[in-house]
């Protein structure tokens, strides 16, 4: 009788312990703790990757850039580099674009440019940090058409006065004048008198720079998420900068604004890994009256990933969608329209709008 009671007690204790152990693990939430999000700090330096294969065999990252009537290109980026971050302001600036970064670029319009593969062959270094253009760096442009030789484009110093102030284009056969100031080089793509080599060189460099900029712009939404600025709601609205320019085609609403919406894909009622976000721009102007960009349209940020070690954010990105959400991780453009200013002969005008579509993976680690 006593043995039976003792056995019963033991079995009850065992059952309770199994239950306690089982529920203890489940309730731990997979290792996350509410408190660990209170004092997160960002690292002072991150490597980043933009592009590469998307999750679940969804193919490669692809960004399509379309300027109707002028050009249309589709590029598969696989770009690596580093950013330096201010831990107080949480603002990160580009430091390098690393060797090995490559872009498989399909220039559908104008067709005569042909398709090119672009490889970063020498590291792009931005010094001082925050510069608009790198001081060093080389890309190799590999035209896919038969019989065309590779083109090397490098930041250089043709007149030995100002390192990084010029761009040299090395092609076979050699160009009559292969050294350009930055402005000359960037304007080659818009100059009807440019040769095929010059057009490919300028287009390719611009494509790499543009993708880097888009990736870093996407990184600017992380503070909204990390600091959970939703204040208990699901949407943030902020106004953009005031437009004071005089060109036609400025924002219809001034200042315009953007909304940043949180979608709780992970279903845990808190902003965090697995969740998605959508940023919608309405006549949103970034810049001053003479130099800026007007944005309209949307960007979806799907599958937020975050790794924390000792309160330090060691990995941030949009990589893996929440299980069961049916989404694909990454940043995708929902017909985002960019209108940028251009200065020609001291007159500020706007370039025809660019429309972006496609999806790419982004991660800082």
């Amino acid at each position: 009788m006593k043995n039976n009671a003792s056995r019963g007690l033991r079995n009850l204790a065992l059952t309770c312990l199994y239950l306690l152990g089982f529920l203890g693990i489940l309730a731990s939430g997979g290792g996350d703790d509410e408190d660990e999000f209170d004092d997160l700090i960002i690292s002072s330096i991150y490597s980043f990757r933009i592009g590469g294969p998307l999750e679940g065999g969804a193919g490669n990252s692809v960004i399509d850039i379309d300027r109707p009537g002028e050009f249309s290109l589709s590029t598969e980026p696989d770009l690596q580099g580093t950013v330096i971050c201010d831990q107080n302001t949480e603002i990160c600036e580009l430091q390098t674009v690393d060797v090995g970064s490559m872009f498989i670029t399909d220039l559908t319009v104008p067709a005569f440019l042909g398709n090119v593969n672009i490889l970063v062959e020498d590291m792009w270094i931005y010094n001082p940090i925050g510069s608009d253009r790198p001081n060093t760096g080389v890309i190799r442009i590999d035209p896919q058409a038969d019989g065309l030789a590779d083109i090397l484009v490098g930041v250089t110093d043709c007149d030995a006065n100002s390192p990084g102030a010029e761009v040299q284009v090395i092609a076979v056969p050699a160009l009559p004048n292969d050294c350009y100031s930055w402005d000359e080089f960037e304007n080659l793509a818009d100059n009807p008198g440019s040769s095929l080599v010059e057009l490919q060189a300028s287009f390719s460099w611009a494509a790499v720079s543009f993708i880097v900029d888009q990736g870093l712009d996407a990184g600017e939404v992380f503070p909204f998420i990390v600091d959970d600025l939703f204040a208990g709601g699901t949407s943030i609205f902020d106004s953009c900068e005031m437009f004071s320019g005089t060109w036609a085609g400025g924002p219809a609403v001034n200042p315009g604004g953007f909304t940043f919406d949180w979608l709780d894909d992970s279903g845990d009622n808190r902003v965090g890994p697995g969740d998605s976000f959508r940023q919608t721009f309405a006549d949103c102007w970034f810049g001053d009256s003479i130099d800026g960009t007007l944005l309209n349209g949307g960007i979806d940020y799907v599958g937020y990933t975050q790794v924390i070690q000792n309160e330090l954010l060691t990995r941030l990105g949009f990589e893996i969608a929440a299980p069961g959400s049916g989404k694909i991780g990454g940043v995708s453009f929902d017909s985002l329209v960019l209108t940028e200013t251009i200065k020609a002969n001291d007159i500020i005008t706007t370039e025809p709008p660019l429309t972006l579509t496609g999806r790419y993976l982004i991660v800082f680690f």
Partner: protein
Amino acid sequence: MIPDLSAQAGIFGSAPSFFYTLALGLLIGSCASSTAGARFHCLLWIAVALCLELVQHRLIAEPLVAWLRERLSEPIWELVGPYWTRGTFDRLDLLASIIGGSIALLILTYRSGEKNHEK
């Protein structure tokens, strides 16, 4: 030379798995009525801990989340859902659970050997 322990966050991040499996393994084993029972229950506990880690693997977690979300009530899902939606499968956690459980098993075996010897 002093090792830089702060650089070993990946290993120490698995410490809870190690201690949890070890402690629960010892408690569960010590509630069993015999040496064989203690070993059996300790092994069973290790298996449960390993299974719970394995179900965080994306291949299992994804269909499991879709299935559980439809069946569990909202308060229960809010309690246990984050285990799959926020948690990630970690091989180091798996290893830590195996080591913690094995140590518990060794202690239980050693203690029962001592008891037998005393008798």
